[in-house]
């Protein structure tokens, strides 16, 4: 009886789809890719959370096959703790950082005019929604930009910091916060917010999404999944959702760039078999 159970369990494990731990901002794009079958069949398990939370979990042995981080720092951290295979690491995507407001907002902000337009938009008790600036990549990039523009010290007391960039996006689209700083891909995916301004690329470290196979999970399936993520079909979907080629990309871009605003309502949002990772109980 025990032998039969063990065989059944190992057979189930052998057939289990691979798992990708992905930065929260990748949710709409990866969900669509998985739903369209572009990531193989059966579609992989997709676990989304802040890259910081995911890296910590992988470093402690979480059963992910691939890890896609929203910045190099957390991939470096995972590499330092020997949690990923450095030979499989590559830069998958780039992104931009934008200032957003609820779609119904009448605020107008030109970052070249300094802080007054932002304080106007915040009003007397409004808050700026941002991901945690000490750990979450979107928050880290946001702090770099605001420091560069000389706006950090005035805005810091007016911030509401969230666990990940999608939670910050949520606060703005629910009209809880009049302003937010998220990735352009987040703004593209959400019709209830609009982009007020884009932070200059020079004001923060280049936004890079590295991908790598997790140590101990190197297999034909993992390699195939990695190749699927780097395929032209996947690149087209990522571009549709507002991502860019990673900075210093050596590969030629195959398709022509598309305007995100015309594609906002296309494609739909599928959410097959996803779960929010990084939950910390109570």
């Amino acid at each position: 009886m025990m032998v039969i159970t063990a065989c059944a369990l190992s057979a189930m494990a052998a057939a289990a789809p691979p798992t990708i731990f992905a930065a929260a901002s990748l949710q709409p794009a990866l969900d669509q890719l998985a739903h369209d079958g572009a990531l193989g069949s059966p579609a992989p398990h997709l676990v989304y959370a802040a890259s910081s939370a995911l890296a910590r979990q992988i470093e402690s042995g979480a059963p992910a096959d691939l890890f896609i981080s929203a910045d190099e720092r957390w991939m470096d951290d995972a590499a330092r703790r020997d949690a990923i295979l450095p030979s499989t690491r590559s830069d998958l995507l780039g992104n931009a950082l934008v200032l957003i407001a609820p779609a119904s907002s009448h605020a107008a902000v030109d970052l070249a005019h300094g802080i007054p337009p932002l304080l106007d938009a915040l009003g007397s008790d409004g808050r700026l929604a941002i991901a945690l600036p000490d750990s979450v990549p979107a928050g880290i990039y946001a702090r770099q930009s605001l420091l560069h523009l000389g706006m950090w010290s005035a805005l810091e007391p007016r911030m509401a910091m969230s666990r990940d960039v999608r939670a910050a996006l949520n606060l703005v689209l629910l009209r809880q916060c009049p302003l937010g700083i998220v990735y352009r891909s987040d703004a593209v995916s959400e019709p209830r917010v609009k982009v007020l301004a884009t932070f200059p690329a020079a004001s923060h470290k280049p936004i890079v999404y590295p991908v790598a196979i997790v140590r101990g999970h190197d297999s034909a399936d993992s390699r195939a999944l990695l190749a699927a993520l780097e395929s032209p079909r996947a690149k087209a979907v990522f571009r549709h959702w507002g991502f860019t080629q990673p900075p210093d990309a050596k590969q030629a871009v195959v398709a022509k760039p598309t305007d995100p605003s015309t594609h906002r309502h296309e494609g739909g949002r599928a959410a097959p078999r996803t779960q929010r990772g990084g939950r910390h109980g109570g």
Partner: protein
Amino acid sequence: MSPLTPAETVALALSFKIALVGVFCSLPVAISCAWLLARKRFFGKPLFEGLLLLPLILPPVVTGYVLLIVFGHHGAIGRWLDAVGLSIAFRWTGAALAAAVMAFPLLVVALRNAFESVDRRLESAAATLGAGAWRIFFSVTLPLSLRGLVAGLALAFARAFGEFGATITFVSSIPGQTRTLPIALYELISMPGGEGGALRLTLVAVIVALLAGLIAALMLLRGGERSAGAEA
């Protein structure tokens, strides 16, 4: 010299303030609900009980999201609070509400047990001597259930103190306003190099939890001995 950094001390003090205010403000509501459950029979009682236990069963993030929708800006209740200038969105008062909601089931269950353990004959005796319902409650029921009440408060306080998911979803992390000790702890363990601070805060959290548990255990232990002695 404090062993904690200034930011950690702020988070600790904030957690105490939020948990104490949350639990004590919810006490009258908890007492009322517990008394109804202990003393009254009414239509829909099981459903009522189920609703009271909901924060214990729902994922805390869901509870936090519901609080955000209802009490946040433009929310069903939030818009009225905003209109009279009593907004709790992104304020420590919002964090106190989140903590209170999450601790509420623990408080109600403990209080209900305490009320049920009070000998009804004593309450009847008071009634025959002419006491009204309120007088009976404050002169007989409440004093006799004091140990259970203190135990419930200790447990509820510990739960409120450690509350994380609902708080960060509803009021986010704002240093000095809503960044409680558990949230500060989460931020520290997410930061490379934050392990030292995380360990300090963990020790503090463990001490608080042990003290609360000790108080609850002592109260319930003595309460058991006394009622056993009274019947002997």
